[in-house]
Structure formats: structure tokens, C-alpha cells
């Protein structure tokens, strides 16, 4: 039973970290253009426009 508190605490903290990451991803526009992101990987590096 000693470790349980630690485990629960770890679950809560990691959950909050994940949530923070997700909210950051939303805010930085990573879900704005899913169609474009899917095909951008096909663009050759030297041909790509400067970001």
C-alpha cells in the first residue's frame, strides 16, 4: 500500500502533463491543416519552401 500513493500521484501528474502538451499543440495550430500535413512529408527537403 506504500507505493499506491506514489502511483496515483504519478498518474495524475502525467495526465496533467499530457493535457498541457495537447493544449499546446492546439494553440500552436498543429491541427489546422491535417490534409496538408499528410502530404507535406512527400516534399523533398531541398525543394521545400523556407518555413
Amino acid at each position, binding site marked *: 500500500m506504500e507505493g499506491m500513493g506514489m502511483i*496515483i500521484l504519478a*498518474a*495524475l501528474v502525467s*495526465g*496533467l502533463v*499530457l*493535457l498541457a502538451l*495537447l*493544449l499546446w499543440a*492546439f*494553440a500552436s495550430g498543429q*491541427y*489546422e*491543416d*491535417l*490534409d*496538408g500535413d499528410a*502530404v*507535406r*512529408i*512527400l*516534399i*523533398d527537403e531541398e*525543394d*521545400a*519552401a*523556407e*518555413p
Partner: protein
Amino acid sequence: MGALTLSLAPPDHADDLSRHVRRDADCESFEVAVTGARCAGCIAKIEKGVTALPGVAFARLNLSTGKLLVRGHDFAPQAVLRRLRDLGYQARPFEAAETLSAEDAEGRFLLRCLAVSGLGTVLAMGLTDAVWYSSDMAPALRQGFFWLAAVVTVPASLYAGRPFFRSAWKGLKARTANMDLPISLAVVLALGLSLYQAANQAAHTYFDAAVMLVFLLLVGRYLDYRLRDKARGAARHLLALQSLLVRRLGPQDTLETVSARDIAVGDRVLVAGGERVPVNGVLEGDTDLDVSLVTGEVLPKAVSQGMTALAGSIVSGAPVVLRATARVEDSLVADLARLLEAGQQSRSQYVRLADRAARLYVPAVFVLSTLVLGGWLVVGASLSVAVTSAITVLIITCPCALGLAVPAVQVVATGRLFRRGVFVKSGDALERLAEVDLAVLDKTGTLTLGMPVLRNAEALPPGLLDRAARIARASSHPYARALAAAAGPGPVAQGVTESTGQGLSRGAERLGSAAWIGARGDSPLWYRDGDGAPQGFDFSDVIRPAAPALIEAMRTRGIRSEMLTGDRADIAARIAAEAGISSWQAGVTPQQKAARMESLRAAGRKVLMVGDGINDAAALALAHVSIAPGNATDISQRAADMVLRGDDLSAITEAVDVARRARRLVLQNFAVAVAYNLTAIPLAALGMVTPLVAAATMAGSSILVTLNALRLARG
């Protein structure tokens, strides 16, 4: 109408694009609607091409929305548009005020709520599952788990539940009870009850139920938002396409290119052959006008100096100068604009299925929980038992699956129609389409191709068509184009001169009107070589091959068809007979079309209007539901509920079928959700619902409803 896409190269930029550029402290941004980009190659080509322009620091194309964002210092917006055109893409600037400021804050807010409630659900289930599955847990430990669950779920539910709280509050202020009222009450009461139970060392809490409720309902809410957002995006795109650019003549006859909206009364505008007349005005020369978009008449009209040209007509003869008599906003018939507005209002009065369900459901739930409260008190139970049971009934009947029942089906249905080439602008348009019992169709450009086609090709002497077509290919006049189309691909004659309102000549050969050629007859176009015998060409509009099948398909589905056209009665009679339509009216003005919609509505008919022209726009807006073919004018596409991607009329039949199936599935979903809840209500009323049962009914009915909706994606 096909003529729109055939227009000659329009002016590609306005000299003043400043109102399309937003200036911030450290950079300027410019947004362009790009059409035609579809692949990685397009993205690379466009971004590289635009970034190479002087002053441009950043260019990024959003493939989902077709929006190109350009940032930099002192770059020329005209150069960006020209570069895009050189690369082979159509480009129109967005108005800065239109897009950059109107960021979709609502979508981001819903997404944040979804993330918070999703995480809250996962954590709460982990914490409370531990309690459910260990019956021998020490009370103190159980208490600890409950308080942990409270720490997670209370803030998460209150944060993520705000979309519902706001809507319920708005509803209350307007003295109506919408679906969000019982939802908000259930969430708040579940949290309150659980806190009370935890403090009193009870065995059950509903922390997980509250946050799960919010999460599942937000899924439905987000799907609904995505549908509306897609439609809004399309409308914005259309708006950008409407920012028509025109050539204005300055004081010394200098030409400058300006946005059509900047044309003032009295300005002189040059309109080249194939271009659209931007504003109502008086002609300063002779030319031919294609008015099929404005009135529905297919054959072009010869007009002369001093006559009025209406906005939307296409100049099919020589370039002409026009003195504007109205601004762009006033150029559509004022009545038409007013009717458009009235149509949009009457449509907003339509009560969606979900709202109709809410009107029945919300009072029922409140009555039920009041009865439970009263029942327990009458049989002598303590107040706490009675209140607990009443709240449990509220939680268990919460319309979780009802919130998903409609959006889930509509998302699947619109997705399926989108792949079929039908763009649905709103979810309730599908609901309205399912109710239709009468189809009213426009003739020109909808049932027919909307352009003249040569009729007497077989009767011509051999070789004559080819000789005439060689000259005709040099002109963009509708008759000349029809002649060239009938002859097929071939060479263009050199040295053809065009005499406005008369015809084309090359040496001794002449192609033009009867009077000019020196011939007598009814044919609108004649060919004569020197003093040889003149030969006439006859033209008429022809029906689309898919039209009779569409009318027949509608009949088998119990939908009668009717044709309204502004064209002549003899032409209308022939087309109606070929399409298999028995009731039709010819010579109808736009106002009469709209009035017909009003009278059909008053007679209780649910009308589907299909039309493409400017003269159809008001009728499209007033109909119960409306569809515009992909070649329709911008204003018709805006007024219609659905837009076909191409001009394949058979897609309309499929849209009706999908709409009817979607309606059936929605009703089934309501039944599933209500049935599921009904089984749980007696248990809740008797105080026998454990949190486990609550969670199972909620998740179970939501999953069932979603799976049922997915059936529409197949076959």
C-alpha cells in the same frame, strides 16, 4: 452557366489591394483563396514560388481550406496574385477584415473542453473503478479515492461544461428550456450530490458520471461545429471569388484596374468580350449580350448605344464601355436582394429534429424527477433519500445519446454526399430535403446545357460546316462557339475581322446576321462565300442527358416535378416534353419565381428548388430546401443549401435518398436512446442505480447510436 468559366483572361489584380492586406506592428499579412491545389507538388511549387518574391518572408498554404497566408515587409500583393496565376492556380484575395479577425475561437474552445473532459474521464474512471471492484475496501481508503476523484472531476466538469452552461443560461433568459438545461442541471447536481455523499461516507458517488456525461456530449457538439465550420469556410471562399476586378476608364481614357465594389455611379467601365457586366449601366456602344444568367433566355441579344445592361449579363460581342448607373450592392434588382434576406429568415424558423425532440424530452424529464421526489416523500422516506433518487433520475435520463443522435448521422451523411460530389452547407438542410414532396426546376442551365447548340448540321451541304467553323473559331460569340463546337477541333482562319452586331468576315467569306449577309430567313446565323448561295444555321438549347432520368427518379420517390423558366413558351414546352415534366410556366420573372415559392409554401408544399441563374437566387433562398449545380452563379451558390461539385444531376437523386435514410437513422437513434434510458429510469426511481449502472447506460447508448449512424457510410 458554362459561359462564366469560358470568360477571357480577366484583369488579374486590382491596382489597389490595400484593403486586403493587414498591417501589424512588425509585418504585413495577406490571405489568398487558391483553387486547384491538391498535392504535395502544388504546396511546394506555390510556397517556393511566392516566397521567392521580394519582400515575402513567409508563405504557407493550408490544403484543407485552400487558404494561402503570405507574410513579409513591403511586398506587392499584386505580384503574389500574378505569380499564382502564372503557376496555373486561380487566386482571389480575401478581405482582411473578413478572415484574419474572425478566427474560429469557438472550435478551439470546444476542442480544449473536449481534451480536458476526456482526460478527466480517464482519471475519474481509474479512481472510481478501484472502489467498484474492491468490496472489502476500508471506508477511510474509499473516502480517499472519492476525494481524489472530486479533485479531478469537479474542476474538469465545470471547465469543460461551460458550452452547455452558457447555452442553458441563454435559453433561460429567453424563457425557453433547451436540451442544455437538463444537461447542465444533471452535471451540477451530480457533482453536488457526490460531494455530499463523499462527506457523509456513503458507498456511492457520481463524479465519474458527471465528467463522462460532459465528454460524450462534447463529442456530439464538436461534430456539429465541424459541419457548420465547413459550410462557413465554403461561404467565405465564395465571397472571395465575388471580389470581382474590373477595368475603369479614367478622365483621359486611362485604364486602371479596381475592385468592382469601388465603382461609383457615373464611372465608366470597360467590359471585354466574354466578361461579366459588373454593375447596371448604360452602354456607350453596340455589342451582343448573353443574358441567360439574368433572365433565362438562351439566345444572345444584340444591344446598341444608350440601352441598359444589367449586372450579370455577359458581353458576347465586341468590348464595350458602360456608364455605371448603380453601385455593385444596388445592381442586383433591389427586390431580389430583399427576397434573399426574407428566405434566409424563413429558413431560420425551421425547427430542427433535435430541438423538436428536446421540446418533448425536457418537460418529461422534469416532471418525472418531481414525481419521484414526491413519491418517496409520500411513502415516508427521508428527505435525503427522496432528493438522491430524484437527482439520480435526472442524471440517468440525461440526453447523452440524444446529443449524439443527430450530429453523428449528419456527419456520416454529409461525408458520404461529399464523396459523391454534393456539398451540404448545413445539417438541417438534410432534414429539410428528406421532407420534400415537390421539385421545382429551372430550365436554362439546370435541365438544359444553357447554351445554343447547332440543330441543322445534317441538312448542310458537305464541307460547308468546316469552312464556316474555321472563321467561327476566331470569335467568342455564343453562336460562333456553338458552330465551332459542332464542327469539332480544327484550324482557325487567319485575318478574320469582327463587325459588332453584324458578323465575321475574311476576304469574300462572311458569317453573320441575315441582313448583313444579304439573305432572307429566320435563321439567326448565316454563311456566304462571295456571291454564292447563303446558308442559314439554326440553334437551340438542348436538354441535359441526365434530366429525364432525374424527373423519373423523383416520380418514383413520390416527388412531383415542375419547371419555371424566364424563356419563351415554345422553347419551354419542347424542353418540358423532353424531360417528362407536365406542369411548367414560361416567361417567369425572378419576382414571379419567388412568389410561386411563397404560394407553394402557403399551400403546405415542401419544395426542393434546383436552379443556377441570378434569376433563381431568390427562389432558391425561399424554397424549403435548394440545390445549385456546380456551374451556377456565385449568388445562387450562396443562396442554395447544397451545391453540386459538377453538373451531374443524378447526384440530386442520391442526395434525396441519403437525406431520407439519414432521417430514418436519426429517428431510430432517438428510439434507441430513449429506450435505453427508459429501462434505467425505474431502477433510478427506486434508488437502485449504482454509479456502475449509470456509466454503463450512458456509454452503452452513445456507442449504439454512433454505430447505427455509421451504417449510412456503407451502401
